[in-house]
C-alpha cells in the first residue's frame, strides 16, 4: 500500500467449528479490522485473537514462510497465511481450514499426523548403507551439482498445500500426494540411499502412489516453495512404468 493512501477496513471471514464443543456447528464468523501497512494474515489473525476473540484456533510457528504450519484456504486457495499480505486480497477475506487433514478446531488442522503416516508408509528417510559410518573420517564426496539438485527437492516444508489442492487426495484416503511423490523423487536422486527402482515401485507403483495422480497438477500451482512437482511426478511415473513393465 502506497504511503498516504487510506487504509481499508477489512472483513476477515473465518470458518469456525470446534468439534469438541457439543452441538457446535460449522459457521462463518466475520471480524472487522483496520488494515495496517505491510499487514500479513499472521498479523491480522493475531490482532483478532488479541483484541476481539481469544477463542479462535490457528497455527503459526516461524511466521516467516519456512516451517509450513500456517497453511489454510485463503479465499478458496491453499496458501501460507504468514506470508500472505492483505493488500493483495480484497476487502473481504475468507479463511477456512485445509481439507483432507483432520480438523483440530477452526483454522487448525493436524498435518503432522498425516505427514508422519505418509513418511512411515514410504519409508521416507535415507536408507543408509549397512555398517557403521566412520565419523572421524573425511565425508564421502558428492558432486556439487548433485547436492544442489537434491536440495532443490529437499526444500519441501510439508505444509500440506499440495494435498489440500489435490483431486485424488479427496477421493483416496491413502494417496501419498505430491509431497510423498516428491520425497521418493528426492531419495531416488540420492546416491546415499541404497534403494533401487524395484524398491520404490513397491512403495509408489500403484493407485495410492504415482498411478493415482490424475495430472490435474494443482499441487504444482499452489506449492509455496515452487517445487518442480509437475516434472518430478511425470518423471517418476515414467520410471515406475518402466520398472512395472520391464521390471
Amino acid at each position: 500500500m502506497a504511503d498516504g493512501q487510506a487504509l481499508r477496513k477489512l472483513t476477515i471471514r473465518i470458518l469456525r467449528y470446534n468439534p469438541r464443543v457439543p452441538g457446535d456447528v460449522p459457521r462463518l464468523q466475520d471480524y472487522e479490522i483496520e488494515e495496517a501497512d505491510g499487514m500479513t494474515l499472521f498479523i491480522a489473525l493475531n490482532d483478532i485473537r488479541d483484541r476481539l476473540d481469544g477463542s479462535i484456533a490457528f497455527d503459526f510457528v516461524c511466521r516467516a514462510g519456512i516451517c509450513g504450519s500456517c497453511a489454510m484456504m485463503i479465499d478458496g486457495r491453499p496458501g501460507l497465511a504468514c506470508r500472505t499480505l492483505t493488500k493483495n486480497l480484497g476487502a473481504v477475506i475468507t479463511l477456512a481450514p485445509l481439507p483432507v487433514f483432520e480438523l483440530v478446531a477452526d483454522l487448525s488442522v493436524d498435518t503432522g499426523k498425516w505427514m508422519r503416516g505418509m513418511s512411515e508408509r514410504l519409508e521416507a528417510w535415507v536408507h543408509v548403507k549397512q555398517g557403521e559410518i566412520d565419523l572421524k573420517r573425511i565425508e564421502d564426496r558428492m558432486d556439487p551439482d548433485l547436492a544442489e539438485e537434491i536440495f532443490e527437492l529437499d526444500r519441501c516444508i510439508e505444509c500440506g498445500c499440495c494435498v489440500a489442492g489435490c483431486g485424488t487426495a479427496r477421493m483416496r484416503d491413502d494417496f501419498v500426494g505430491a509431497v510423498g511423490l516428491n520425497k521418493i523423487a528426492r531419495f531416488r536422486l540420492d546416491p546415499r540411499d541404497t534403494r533401487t527402482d524395484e524398491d520404490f515401485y513397491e512403495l509408489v507403483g500403484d493407485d495410492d502412489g504415482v498411478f493415482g495422480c490424475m495430472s490435474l497438477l494443482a499441487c504444482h500451482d499452489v506449492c509455496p516453495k515452487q517445487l518442480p512437482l509437475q516434472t518430478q511426478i511425470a518423471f517418476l511415473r515414467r520410471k515406475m512404468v518402466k520398472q512395472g513393465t520391464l521390471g
Partner: protein
Amino acid sequence: MKIVYTDVLVIGGGLAGLRLAIGAKRRGHDAIILSLVPAKRSHSKAAQGGMQASLGNVAKGQGDNEDIHFEDTVRGSDWGADQEVVRMFVNTAPKAVRELAAWGVPWSRVRKGDRQVVINGQKVTITERDEAHGTVAQRDFGGTKKWRTCYVADATGHAMITAVADQAIADSIPVHERKEALALIHDGGRCLGAVVRDLTTGELLAYVAKATAIATGGAGRLYRSTTNAVICEGMGHAIALETGAAALGNMEAVQFHPTAIFPAGILVTEGCRGDGGLLKDAKGHRFMPDYEPEKKELASRDVVSRRMEEHIKKGNGAKSRFGEHLWLDITLLGEKHIHTNLREVWDICHYFLGVDPVKDFIAVRPAQHYTMGGVRTTPTGESPTLKGLFAAGEAACWDMHGFNRLGGNSVAETVVAGMIVGEFIADFCDRAENAATVPVGLVQEFVQREQAKLSAIVDRRSGEDPSTLKLEMQDLMTSCVGIFRTGAELEKAVDGLQKLLARSRNVGVKSSAPGPNPELVTAYRVQKMIKLALTIAYGASVRTESRGAHFRSDFPRRNDAEWLKRTLATWKGDSDTLPTLDYEPLDVKRMELPPGWRGYGAKDYIDHPETPARAALVEGAKATAADRFALQQSLMPYEHLLPPVLRGRNERIDEPF
C-alpha cells in the same frame, strides 16, 4: 488419570531433542518426544546460514582445526563459557557434520577451480583445491578466524531437521505432537517426568520416565521484537525454574541479531555478511569499518548490534514510518549467488518487504535472537541439583556460549549436544539404581495441582487479560532490558515485572471452551514468562559489568576481578516475587585460554588477579609442546569427559590419518 511410561522423556522436538532421543533409542532405551508442533516445524528449522565445524575443506578454511574453533568460541563468549565444554563441542562438531552428511543432508559442496567471491567489499578470485572437490563447503561468519560454517544454501536448519526427524521416524521414535509440559514431576531431588497438557483435547496426562530432558529452545518471545518463532516462549526454562531445585544459568545473557528485517523482525542470515554483504546507513555510507577496523561487519553479533544502535543514536539511521533502521546491502553479491546461496533471504525480502535484494537494500535493525541462558547442567547435560533432569541445546546452559554465542554455533550445538547428552542419558538409564519406581501419590499430586491452576484461570472470568499482560511484559523487556542497559532502567524493569507478576496471579479467560483454548494457553504461559523475564532483568541489574551481549552503559568494562562467574537463578517458593541468585566462579587456573582481548569490541577490561600467572604458564607451554595435541592435553585435558564413542581426532585433507 492417564499415565504414560517411558525410559526417556524428551521435551521438545527440535534438533537437540530429536538427536538426543535417537541416541538413547539406539542404546536400547525407549524414548518419547513431546512437541508443541510437528517436529519438523520446530524453530531449529529457521537456522539459515549454517553450522560451524572445523573441516577446513575450502581454501579460506585451510589450516582450520579444533584449536581455532575453540579460541573463536571462547573469545565470542567473552570468557563466560565453560572451556571444557567448548572443547567437547569443537571436537564433536566435525563428527556431527559427517553423520548428517551420511543421513542425507545435502550440504553445499566444494567445487574445484576458480570462483569469484566478495571479501571486504571487493571481488576476489579464490581457487579451490582439486582434492577438496565434492567435500562439504564452508562460508565465512562473524567472529571466526577461518571460513568454518558448513551450510545448505541458506536453509541449513531446514535440511538438518528434515534429515534428523526422518531418522527418528526410521528409528520408530514416537513424537507426541501438540503436547505441552506444564510442570516437571519431582520430589525436590529426583525428576520423574512431567505433567502434560494435550493441546488438542485440553486434557492433562502424566508422563513418567527414568530420565527427562528439556530441549525446548529459547525464550525470544519475552521480547516484543525477536527473530524467534512464536512458540519460543521459554516454557522449558520455566518448568525447570519452577521446580525450585534446578537452576537457570546466565539468563541475563541475551543475544540480539544485527540483521532482522525491519519492522517484522524476521531473520536474514549472518551468511549475508559472511558472503560479503555490507551494512550501510541512511547516507549509503558503510559504517562498520569506522567502529571495528579489524573485523568490520564480521565482528561478533553483540558487537555489531551495539555498533548499529550506536550509529542510529548518532542520527545516521534511515527513517521510516515505523521508526529508524539501517541497510543491509547484498546487491554486490550478484543475482546468481543470491538465487543459489541466499534463496531464503530473497523469499523473505520478496514476501515481507516487497523488495528484490538483487537490486535493493534490505531494511534491518537488531532484534532479540538467542537465549544464552538456560537450565544449568554439568558437561554430561544433567542438572547438578535435580537428578534425572537433563537439558540440551538452546534451553541448556551447558555452557559453551557464555555471554555471547557465535553465529553457526547454535545449530551445531543442537546436534552435538544431542549426540553427547544422548549417550550420557543412555548411561544414566543403564544404571540399575536409576530405574524409576512410580510414585503414584506424587504423580497424582502434581497432576491435581496443575489441574487446579488451570481451573482457577478458567473460573476467573473477570481476571487480568492474558494478552495485555504479555504485551506489557514484552514492552518492558524491549525498552529496559535490551542491547544497552543501565541500573536505573533495569530497576524499572524489575519493579514493573514484579507488578505484572502479581497481576498474572489473577489472570482469567473469557472462554471455557473445551479443546485447544488458545486464550487459556496464553494465560498459563504468561505467568511463567513473567518469572523468566524477572530472572533476566534481575540478573542483569545485579551484574555490574559488561560482558558479551550483556552491556551496562553505567559499567561498560568487563570486570573479571569481580564477575568472572556464572549467574545461577532459582525460584524457591511459589509466592516469591524474585528469583534467588547464586554465583558459580569460573576458574582461571584451569583455563586453556586465559581471559584477554577478544580481537574486536572494547579493549578495556579489568583483569582477574590470577590471569597474568595463568597466561604466562600457557605461553610457556606453547614454547615447549611437541605438537598442538600435546599442548592442548597439557593445558586442559578434556577427552575423558566425552562419551567413548565420540572420542578421537578428526581427519582433514591437511591432517590425514
